């Protein structure tokens, strides 16, 4: 099982690049694609899901070019788009039966799978209600269920936790962990904690280009000794924000506790702390943008 993205570019109308010379090789595991809005995550996912063809480069699934033979990949693909709709007059079972038929699932196997999936996504009780009356989070869970119908070898989920309540988010993360193993899962998100919980690899993407691709531990290692906890008077917060890359701040009785990403300590009283993936994400994105925390920034 091998997915190879080889120098893929996508040029949209108006000469806007969605992706530029993007390369990546994937084997079973969970890859989290992180990046700001407009980074090219959804473009990449649509190309991998055979919805869009790249302008240049190629993507191969087990050696087969997916632009030339898309149906080979589609047979083992599960895809949850970022923005999707449902047929409002169908109920969840009917919609999933429809999608199962499109995916070529035999009737009995489809029925069993749908029942189990409805339990997994916590929609079993609501399965007879028309989808038009579902809340956003419930529709999102229907989308997750349809992506898993054919037990996909390649599962692509674009912002899967958008609209889910905290409990459902945790439930979905657990599901992803359960699914990881003998399949490739690509998870696009800008919620770094989702990536942290489920991913075996993380790819940071910005401006349509791959900035970094590594295991989470490797990304964290790159930031060892570059993250500082610093207490400052609230009056200095604006000035500090202009000079340093701040990953978080919290007001306390003794001042503002800021978390600074910087090559050197911002002040003698700043204490080195363990980096998080959120720090790493900000670090790589800021490096690419060239807008880094002032004189000591990366």
């Amino acid at each position, binding site marked *: 099982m091998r997915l190879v993205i080889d120098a893929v570019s996508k040029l949209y109308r108006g000469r806007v690049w969605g992706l530029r010379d993007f390369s990546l090789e994937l084997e079973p595991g969970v890859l989290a694609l992180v990046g700001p809005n407009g980074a090219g995550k959804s473009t990449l996912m*649509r190309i991998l*899901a*055979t*919805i*869009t*063809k790249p302008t240049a480069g190629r993507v191969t699934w087990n050696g087969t070019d997916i632009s030339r033979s*898309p*149906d080979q990949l*589609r*047979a*083992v*693909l599960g*895809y949850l*788009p970022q*923005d*999707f*709709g*449902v*047929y*409002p*007059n*169908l*109920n969840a079972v*009917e919609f999933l*039966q*429809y*999608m199962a*038929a*499109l*995916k*070529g*699932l*035999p*009737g009995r*196997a489809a029925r069993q*799978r749908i029942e*189990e*999936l409805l339990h*997994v996504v916590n*929609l079993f*009780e*609501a399965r*007879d*209600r*028309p989808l*038009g*009356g579902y*809340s956003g989070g419930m529709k999102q869970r229907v*989308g997750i269920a*349809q992506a*898993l119908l*054919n*037990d996909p070898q390649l599962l692509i989920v674009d912002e899967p936790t958008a609209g889910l309540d905290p*409990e459902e988010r*945790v*439930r979905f993360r*657990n*599901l992803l962990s*359960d*699914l990881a193993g003998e399949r490739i899962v690509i998870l696009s998100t800008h919620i770094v904690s989702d990536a942290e919980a489920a991913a075996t690899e993380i790819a940071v993407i910005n401006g349509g280009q791959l900035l970094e691709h590594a295991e989470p531990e490797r990304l964290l290692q790159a930031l060892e000794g570059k993250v500082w906890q610093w207490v400052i008077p609230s009056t200095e917060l604006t000035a500090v924000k202009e000079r340093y890359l701040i990953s978080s701040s919290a007001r306390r009785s003794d001042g503002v506790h800021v978390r600074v990403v910087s090559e050197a300590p911002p002040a003698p009283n700043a204490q080195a702390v363990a980096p998080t993936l959120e720090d790493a994400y900000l670090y790589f994105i800021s490096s690419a943008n060239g807008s880094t925390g002032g004189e000591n920034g990366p």
Partner: protein
Amino acid sequence: MRTLHTLYHLTRADFFERFRRYSFLVVLAITVGAGYLFVPPEGAGYLVLHVGLRRGIYNSAWIGLVFGFIAAMHLPLFGFYLVKNALERDRQTGVGQIIATTPISKPVYVVGKWLSNLAVLTLILGVLTVMAVIMQLVRAEDLTINPWALVGPIWLMGLPALAIAAAMAVLFESVSFLRGSLGNVAFLFIWLSMMGRVLSGAFDEATHLAQPTNDLLGFTRAMADIQQQVLALEPDAHMGSGLIVPVGDGEVSTFVWDGIGWSVGSVLGRAMWSGMAVVIPLASAIPFDRFDPARSRQRLKREGLLTRLQKRMGAIRRRDVLRRQCAETRVIQAATAVHLTPLALAPQRGQFLGVLVAELKLMLRGHSLIWYAGTVGLILACLVIPLQYVKQYLLPMVWLWPVLIWSQLGIRERRYNTGQMVFSAPHPVTRQLPATWLAAVFFTVVAGSGACVRLALTGEITGLLAWFVGALFAPALALALGVWVGNSRAFEIVYLLLWYLGVMNQVPAFDYAGVTPAGLAMNIPLVYLGLTAGMVVLAVIGRRRQLQM
């Protein structure tokens, strides 16, 4: 003052949103093309506007009148379908819910949408006016441009009709059951019957002379004026008239027409129609739901009768009625580890029948009980009523009834935003697309099975085969137009005109369903069989194109 300011910006934003679309350029290009065809040269084989096969020389007055007639009689029909998406766009993009939270009142909002509709149609009228000038110079029968004679009829006849059409579009979008295909079909009938009424009431049966009145189209006043001038030149002239007629070489004579003598009263009469148009959007504010999704959901529940019945039966089986209603308010369980059993059976190839059945189920969902009952009633009525009445009354109905089904073809994935999921399933072009078409063909055959059986029993095998061609053609036309245009309106206009001409008025060339002996004798169904193949190929190309974007 603040209201006017709001109205201005509402209209402006909506107009720009439409004006800047690529599809609007296509509309303008079609307008330019149509403008060219309205002024045919000698030997073109057709004539636009004549009285007793006489036409005016192509001076400003005559060309202005021709364009005025087109602007008043045909442009509003197409204009209605063109602009009937102003509220829908706000509904689909979610902007509507944002607008609903602002202080803007419902009347101001709907009037703003009406003005935006009118601005779009007025722009088209402006393009037609420019084309009128160009065509006068191109045909060069009279090179003197008389601005008032040219512009007067186009705007005085066209603008009131367009104002009414723009207002009707807002009204139809505000009334829930007129919002979709049913409204599109209904408007065509309303407009055609209104035109029929104006035209039939305009002429004296014995003399064919028009009686000038202040009708919406401005038709009778103009026609009476022309007839008077023709009679002044030739008192025995035949007064029969038509807008677009086929003619042979040398059949047409010309005369110099000086134009309509617009009096202050007649101009005020035209202005009165435009003023009356304002009443319609204001009335639309009453049924307009202000994008309240709760009201949409109530409708959804009313429509989904089968779903509700299934739900009810399921609840009784489980003896757990309460559990059905508590999904939203359930006690949140602690998030636990989730496990999904690996699928024992891999997805299979060659599941075409499964997809066909799934498409058929999807197609038949969400209609009202009346619609299902009507379908069954139509089949039964065709079986029991005498054949001559079946042919006269029920056969046209058989070819009209499935329009709501056909109009979904090729557009459903875009309308409900399911395209990314559906098209990433295997064989979206070679399996799902043909299954969609064949499911619609199947429904067409079932809905018309009563008529089919009657034709078979009377031994009308040719008619029966032609009927099947129609059952293949109509869904293929819907699918091709749906895939390429992206909405149902194009199909609804094209098909209903075909139906009106071919099935209702039995014009052989448009007899796609083999209902006329003349059409059968001319092998017209074979032409439509070829067109069916062409439409299917077009749909396949269109779908492939969608997947390569």
